[in-house]
């Protein structure tokens, strides 16, 4: 056997490519200094939008994105990211493992949400008379929340026609994200995880490690069915 293989036989780049952040002690995001420009003049949500789109948002896009991120952030213990992270905490997993559990589940939750609204996202880009079923709020269970979203946006002088079409809360939030420049599935998923991770983590970190007796073991109850 030789001491070389396919890896040695190829030419490879010698350096790792950075597309967003400059290395070094004065980091820049897409060219803007974080420490002497962005940190002084922009919201964190503006910086997230900048990171994901490559450009600083307009005043209205930044405001709409911030509102959408607020609405998206509230992931309760009822939802899998916080629930799974809380279980990791009960198991006395390290804080990093609890956070990683929340992050993985939040990323899966975001993927599921975005994939499930593919037809809606395409509809926004190219509307037709009929709203895709995945976006329709029937019965109108999300109307109040969407109304609050519309009011928040309206207070900033922002309105999106899609939000008045009787759509679900999730469809409305995806529409706002897309309107602020997040066009791709990847961008949308990244923004949603950014919004949800802190609160999912916070909920989990309030749980006492090894508090096994306080956890509802039978919620839901798994009923075993032998199939062999």
């Amino acid at each position, binding site marked *: 056997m030789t001491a070389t293989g396919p890896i040695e036989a190829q030419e490879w*780049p010698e350096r790792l*490519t950075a597309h967003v952040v400059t290395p070094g002690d004065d980091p820049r995001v897409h*060219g*803007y200094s974080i420490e002497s*420009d*962005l940190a002084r*003049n*922009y919201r964190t949500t503006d910086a997230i939008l900048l990171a994901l789109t490559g450009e600083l948002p307009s005043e209205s896009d930044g405001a709409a994105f911030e509102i959408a991120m607020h609405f998206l952030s509230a992931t309760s213990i009822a939802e899998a990211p916080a629930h799974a992270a809380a279980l990791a905490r009960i198991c006395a997993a390290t804080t990093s493992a609890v956070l990683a559990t929340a992050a993985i589940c939040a990323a899966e939750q975001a993927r599921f949400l975005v994939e499930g609204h593919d037809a809606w996202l395409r509809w926004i880009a190219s509307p037709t008379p009929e709203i895709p079923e995945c976006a329709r709020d029937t019965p109108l269970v999300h109307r109040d929340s969407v109304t609050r979203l519309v009011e928040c946006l309206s207070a900033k002088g922002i309105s999106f026609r899609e939000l008045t079409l009787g759509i679900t809360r999730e469809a409305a939030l995806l529409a706002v994200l897309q309107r602020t420049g997040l066009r791709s599935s990847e961008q949308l998923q990244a923004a949603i995880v950014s919004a949800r991770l802190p609160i999912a983590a916070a909920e989990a970190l309030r749980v006492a490690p090894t508090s096994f007796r306080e956890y509802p073991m039978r919620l839901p109850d798994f009923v075993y069915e032998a*199939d062999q």
Partner: protein
Amino acid sequence: MKKLELATRVCRAGWDEHEYRGLRLFRDLAGKETLTGMFGLAVTGVRLSPELRGFLDDLSTVVGPPDPRIWPPKTTRLASAYGRALPAVAVGALVFESRDVGPMTCKDAADFFMALSDVVGDQLGDSAVVEAATLELLTRFKRVAGFGVHFRPVDERLVALRKCIERRGLDKGRYWLLFDGAAAAIRKAKRIEPNFASAISAVMLDLGVMPDKLGLLVFAIVQHVQMANCVEGAEQAPEILRRLPDEYIEYVGAPPRRSPRFDGV
């Protein structure tokens, strides 16, 4: 409140015995089943045949290589750079949530062979039919998982696995023969060699594994490929992987610029 329930066919914990996949864990499995068999039971829900178990054992030895310079193992080196192995195991698993790299590609390859089997029907012995059917399906599938070998002329893992398959007499099955026929057709038409994912898929289809279980079963068997790097990575916890020196980074993004709100400080 209405009681919330879900069905499970995995397990029910008892006092002194546990039901698992329709079996009794201690009575039926303890001291009797192998690690490979337990992985198979976990993924497929049924006990593996000795033939499939043996094939998976062979597979576990030819998979890889876990050279830490290769992309998937490298992720575990980065995740373990802070001194813990288990986060790297999780990262090493997630990197395979991919339809282009790793065990999950076997599902797509299996789908191709099942479609090929339908088209070929009872004319498996006619190489011209297999060739024509393969080429027809290539247009339908656009990209066939399990074909294409990066940076080397042939997949050395497939060469090694083929010997194991022949040694076990698993080279007579319908899907294996379809694999061989398709490989010849694709080699002739596209000059593309098969990689071992397509061979794995063919043998496992012959051994009765359904495509939707195939990728996870292969993943379960080959986890050790990532594990070695998780362990050594955590032991080394090297500074240079936590942060590469700046001179090894090439920035190609937007040039330095000032925002409209920049106040000149």
